[in-house]
């Protein structure tokens, strides 16, 4: 092998090792029978079993899915509408662009504090519904950006052809535009879902006091204060597996429709 190619291959391995070694260790430990990070005593799924009977974790899981599903549905509809509206504008406005994408880059902690102040100022009771509302804010920006990327390559003469063949604007949208961009809408929605499932800071600030609206990342955080238990390894592995799967589907969908 050429020495330059060898060097670049070694660098590649090192970089990916750096990125994924901690995760690999985590996954391995979650299957460690002893539960100790120091010694491997055999393969076991018992930590996963103990998760399944842990009422707190089940409750947090339920909350997480409720939040993620509602935030995803709302942000997918609104984000798609925003994308369509912004692409339909003939004159592009830089201010509008910046405003639409700001939630993606504003630090979570800033958004979290801002939301908490606003919600308490308005005397809104905190709970799952406020987490949903807060997640919609940044999810929407991600959905919008994925759908807009697709719309950039969308051939608007398809809509004109549809009108020309006798369809109204409304019919043309549902029969032509929507099916053609649907993979991107789903991809955006899946991305929003994984972001919602993983999100900690904003949920932590807007969940309110008490354990009733605790989500999985918050649950893991509260458990970790008493040390990393093997159960947390198992839980983190599951969350990661779910996110990775959804992200892969999302990427695959986005690639499909480029052809």
């Amino acid at each position, binding site marked *: 092998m050429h020495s330059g190619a060898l060097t670049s291959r070694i660098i590649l391995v090192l970089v990916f090792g750096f990125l994924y070694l901690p995760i690999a260790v985590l996954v391995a430990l979650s299957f460690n029978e002893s539960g100790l990070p120091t010694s491997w005593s055999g393969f076991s799924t018992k930590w996963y079993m103990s998760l399944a009977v842990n009422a707190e974790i089940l409750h947090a899981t339920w909350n997480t899915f409720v939040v993620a599903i509602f935030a995803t549905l709302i942000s997918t509809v609104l984000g798609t509408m925003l994308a369509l509206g912004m692409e339909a504008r003939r004159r592009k406005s830089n201010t509008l662009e910046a405003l639409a994408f700001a939630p993606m880059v504003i630090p979570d902690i800033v958004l979290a504090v801002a939301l908490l102040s606003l919600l308490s100022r308005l005397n809104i009771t905190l709970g799952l519904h406020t987490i949903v509302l807060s997640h919609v804010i940044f999810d929407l920006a991600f959905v919008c950006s994925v759908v807009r990327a697709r719309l950039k390559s969308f051939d608007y003469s*398809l809509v*004109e052809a549809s009108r*020309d*063949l*006798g369809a*109204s604007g409304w019919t043309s949208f549902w029969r032509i535009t929507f099916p053609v961009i649907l993979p991107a809408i789903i991809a955006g929605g899946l991305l929003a879902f994984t972001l919602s499932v993983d999100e900690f800071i904003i949920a932590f600030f807007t969940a309110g006091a008490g354990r009733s609206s605790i989500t999985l990342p918050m649950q893991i955080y509260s458990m970790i204060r008493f040390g990393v238990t093997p159960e947390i390894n198992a839980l983190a592995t599951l969350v990661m597996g779910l996110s990775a799967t959804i992200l892969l589907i999302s990427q695959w969908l986005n690639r499909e429709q480029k052809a």
Partner: protein
Amino acid sequence: MTSSQMPLLRIDQVAKSFGKTRAVDGVSLDIKENEFFALLGPSGCGKTTLLRMLAGFETLDGGKILISGKDISPLPPEKRPLNLMFQSYALFPHMSVRQNLNYGLEMERLPRKTIRRRVDETLASTDLTTLADRKPDQLSGGQKQRVALARALVKRPRVLLLDEPLGALDKKLRERMQLELKRLQHEAGITFIIVTHDQEEALVMADRMAILKDGKLLQAGTPEQIYEEPADRFVANFIGIMNFLDGEIDGTHTFVVDGSRHRVSVKHGPRKAVLAVRPEHVSITESADGLGVIITDVAYHGLDRVLHARTSSSGQALQLRLSAAEGQKYATGQAIKLAFNADKCRIY
């Protein structure tokens, strides 16, 4: 005006500006029933804008568009009795060929049986029956072009608009499709309006054609009229090959170039003038009065040979067309004398 005299489509003083550019500048045209009409011009001449105004995708700044005497300019695209075949074809990528054809008829809320029958007929006449279940991305360029055409034809519009329909095809296929389009137009009995920048295509296909430049209509007429009697120098240059010679007319039906005198139909003078003559109307003469030229190249074109030459004293370029055998007698560098067919010369 009685209905039999009324044109199917009347474009009346139509105008459209984009910002400061006058894309279409007061164009008026009458297009008859069953006519194959070509809108021809260089890119940016306004022909596509005019077509899009007919289809309803651009609003009019002024003027009217009438079909059978009825003003259609306020109507949205879906309410107009004409269909457009898009340059990009604009086939619906998520639908099969058959579904693409069904779409327009479903919008008319026709019964399923009628749709089935009409789509089957159209698929057969455009030779697409075997491809009915394919998706657009499984078709070749020529096949996509036929689907786009079929999708518009199945609607049985009064007028079919075609935007550079053959632009994306290679030369061989284009020539075949030109004849195919003419056949389909004849069979369907529909008025075709085709936009093209290819003058040869317009000459081959059109019953009548219009030449546009900078949004203005320069000339409308049959291909013969436009080829034989171009209204101005631009049209003369745009259609076919034309020789232009700078000289003057002296007021006695005579055009003088390099001291050589040629009879022409125009009398008014004396003034500076440009003589326009097609290569096939230039001949070689023994007469002393002929225009002296030096041959610069003899180009073989199969059926004929084209002699490129320069006038001996003023060095103006021109060409003439001879049969391949006749042309063989001449060689580069040779001095000859030329005469022009007086009836075919035009003075600008």
